[in-house]
């Protein structure tokens, strides 16, 4: 009897374990889901390097590629002969676009680069307004000071089309007749959550042919899913972007699910005047593609 019992128990446990492991549908791998459209690009690699006045200059960016839009850039300067570090007191960056007519325009950038002690490099950023093409050429001008003496080096670089929609930019003419540029900086990889949204807002100085940071404006935000089946879906608890000490504009965007989103903007100057952008309908309209503001950036994750 006892043997029979044990046999039965074994048989029965075998059935159960078979049933347990056989889950019909796999659960979504959420970590993978979030990264579906955005490549992980967290490592700085060499974009290009050059030798100037006895110094080797190495320019680095995430993944070793410069893209249209916002790019973090690092510059490392060493002695040419032995590659030993040198005491560089300052590095200035100047990204310049040369178009087919030979006109030179300086894109938005951080001029005076910051020194980072532990990595012994200088860091800054540049917002490339276009990708390189037959009509558009990019070069980086680097001014560096060693022992009170300033040297200048220039290097041609290639700017690739942006692959991450979360780093998109838009250029437009404001109601004040000025040329503006808004570039998304963060999040690089959004999640279904509350995301800190960072953007740079710049204005073209027509006389200097250079972009300068716009100060004291507000970028009003209304994120929505444009997909017709989502019926103009939006999210709660978003915050308009306002300028902070770093000169960039900071706000909050909530993404309620993965997919295509449109960041609808209204740019307002310090006097409350609308510079660009329009209100979008707020009602829920299933089956109808969401209407976008005249000023918007599409993202996808």
């Amino acid at each position, binding site marked *: *009897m006892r043997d*029979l*019992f044990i046999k*039965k*128990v074994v048989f*029965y446990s075998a*059935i*159960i374990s078979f*049933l*347990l492991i056989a*889950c*019909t*549908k796999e*659960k*979504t791998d*959420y970590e993978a*889901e979030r990264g*579906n*459209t955005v490549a992980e690009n967290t490592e700085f690699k060499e974009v290009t390097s050059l030798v100037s006045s006895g110094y080797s200059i190495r320019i680095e960016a995430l993944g070793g590629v410069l893209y249209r839009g916002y790019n973090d850039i690092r510059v490392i300067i060493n002695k040419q002969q032995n590659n030993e570090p040198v005491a560089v007191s300052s590095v200035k960056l100047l990204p310049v676009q040369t178009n087919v007519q030979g006109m030179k325009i300086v894109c938005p950038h951080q001029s005076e680069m910051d020194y980072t002690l532990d990595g012994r490099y200088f860091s800054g950023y540049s917002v490339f307004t276009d990708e390189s093409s037959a009509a558009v050429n990019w070069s980086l001008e680097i001014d560096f000071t060693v022992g009170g003496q300033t040297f200048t080096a220039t290097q041609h670089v290639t700017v690739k089309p942006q692959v991450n929609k979360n780093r998109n930019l838009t250029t437009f003419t404001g109601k004040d007749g000025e040329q503006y540029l808004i570039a998304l900086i963060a999040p690089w990889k959004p*999640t*279904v*959550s*509350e995301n800190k949204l960072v953007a740079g807002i710049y204005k073209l100085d027509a006389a200097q042919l250079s972009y300068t940071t716009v100060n004291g404006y507000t970028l009003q935000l209304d994120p929505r*899913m444009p*997909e*017709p*089946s*989502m*019926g*103009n*879906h*939006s*999210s*709660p*608890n978003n915050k308009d972007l306002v300028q902070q000490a770093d000169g960039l504009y900071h706000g909050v965007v*909530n993404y*309620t*699910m*993965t*997919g*295509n989103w449109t960041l609808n903007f209204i740019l307002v100057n310090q006097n409350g005047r609308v510079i660009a952008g329009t209100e979008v309908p*707020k009602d*829920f309209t*299933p*089956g109808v593609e969401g209407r976008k503001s005249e000023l918007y950036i599409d993202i*996808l994750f």
Partner: protein
Amino acid sequence: MLSLGWNVHGQNNPVTRDTTRRLAEVTVNAAAKKRIENDLKMTVSVDEYLASASNISFIKRGAYAWEPLLNNMSSERSTITIDGMHVFGACTDKMDPITSYVESNNLAAIDIKSGQEGNLHGATVAGSIDLKRRNTAFGLQKKIGGAYQTGFEFNNKQTFNLGNLYYSSDKFVADGSIAFRKAGNYYDGNDDEVRHSQYNKFNASLGLAYKTSPLSAVRVDAIFDRAKDVGFPALPMDLSLSRAIITSAAYKQLFEEGLVKVWDTKVYFNAVEHYMDDTTRPENLVHMDMPGWSTTYGLLSKINLQKDRYSSEIQVNAYDNLSIAEMRMYPQDRSKQTMFAYSWPWVTTRFASVAMNNALDLSDISRLVFGGSLGLNYNYSKYVEFNWIFHPGSPQKKNRFLPSLHASYQLNIGQFDFSLGTGFGHRAPSVSEAYGYYIYNSFDRYDYIGNPDLKNEVSYEANASAGFKTGKLSIGAKANYFFIQDYIIGRILSLGSPMNYQSVGVKGYTSLDHATLFNLALNAQYQILPGLDWKAVLTYARGQDNMGGNLPFIRPLSYQTSLHYRYKMIGVQTSMNGDFSQVNFSPEYGEDQTASYKIWNVSADYTFTIGKLNAVFQVGAENLFNEYYSTYADWGNIPRMGRNIFTSLKINF
């Protein structure tokens, strides 16, 4: 035995002195129990059986898997267990109440307790529903036995085949059951087909018990349930597959001497998977996948004490549940990226409690029942960022203490008995109430958002009953009143916008300052002639929020009455039930006024023998006059079944 909550005698059975007999009784009390059947039908579904209890009502989303409401409160307010084991459904839309994972032929009884008297298995407000499985005794004279039931119901072409078998020796017992049900769409009282109301269910169970000593036994049990291609006419999607495996291993020890009489310990595991399907609804604008999973591990251990006039049961419960529900929407241009979110963002619930219920016979005519429990409830939301969208900064982990107390006094004077009781208890919000994310409710057409910071719901209750009994007549009245502080309910949010395309807005679970509920049931039973019995129940309920507004899903004044006649081998029964017009409905929660209805049912059965086998054949009709109706709790006002002629055959061997 449908032991209704107020009847406490069922709860603390005085333990007999004879331990060998007791082992048979306590471990395994199958044979003597009344079968699971209702006044009209001998082969019923679990839902049909539960419906005969006066304090149970149902939200119906179709023909299958009705959500049981105890004391007019939704299922998150009651603890629903299978032999004390917690099982949690894997559907955010409540397509799979726990009662859908068992079948009438693997149950011996359903134990319903009202209010805080139901705190033994866990924290509750409404009470508890414990589905008790069949448990054959050791050493039956008839070593092998069983039953087979088959039948056909004409309205929805339902066929069912239910079989159960036992083997019983002095040392070893095996119980097995298997059940198939398959039904097509049903037709309403206007003879119109109610599309998407089909179902297909398979259920099997196995239990093995081995007597390890004269006073101890081990038992392992498993239930496997699978529902396939189940239509939910009231919902925008159907069910393609739902599977549950419910397992347990138990050890029971009896004691011949001393205060402790029985010690019963069980470990359990169950896993539920649930896959909804909207490809059956081509009219839907958006194609979605909504799979859900729920996995629970648990333990319960109980001792029964008895000394003189005092008896007590003390139970320790612990479980760990993980609930996951996903939502993936497909864009109209399928080449584009899909849209994904969690409707349950991997929510863990851990619960532990100690409960003690006592009965003290104060005198030969009076008894005091009192008890309490203390529970600790822990929640963890793995992807808490989903919850932060509506509730920025809410904690990822949350601990709650859930105390409960109750006391009642029972008096029995001659033919009269009275009882008076009170209770107090907390419950934690459910996974959906605390962590749900854009769960579409097709009743009021809102997307619901959980709130992790909800306060415990706190219930204060009072109950009373009175009864009178003679040999032929019994009449009784039971009433209870709940004052529920921080009553959890969905309220329109001014934030956000709907995600599901059918939805009209977003509601967030919030706490009302309080709500009140009153339930009254009157019942009477009379033997008109030998063999001719009459029964009637009248129920009334009223639920209000703190502003005096009506709560949703409160049953209007309703009645059930039946006549039974038995002559030799023939039984005839007729019953009538109905609701009066719903006066106190709640437009705020999506209700409209439901008209009154009245349903007549009849059935007849004949008992005969085929050789050594004992058989019963039954034929009958539900909704004889083919009334077109829907009840206050029919989701989306879907019409109920019209005339249904049913036949069934039961063979016992």
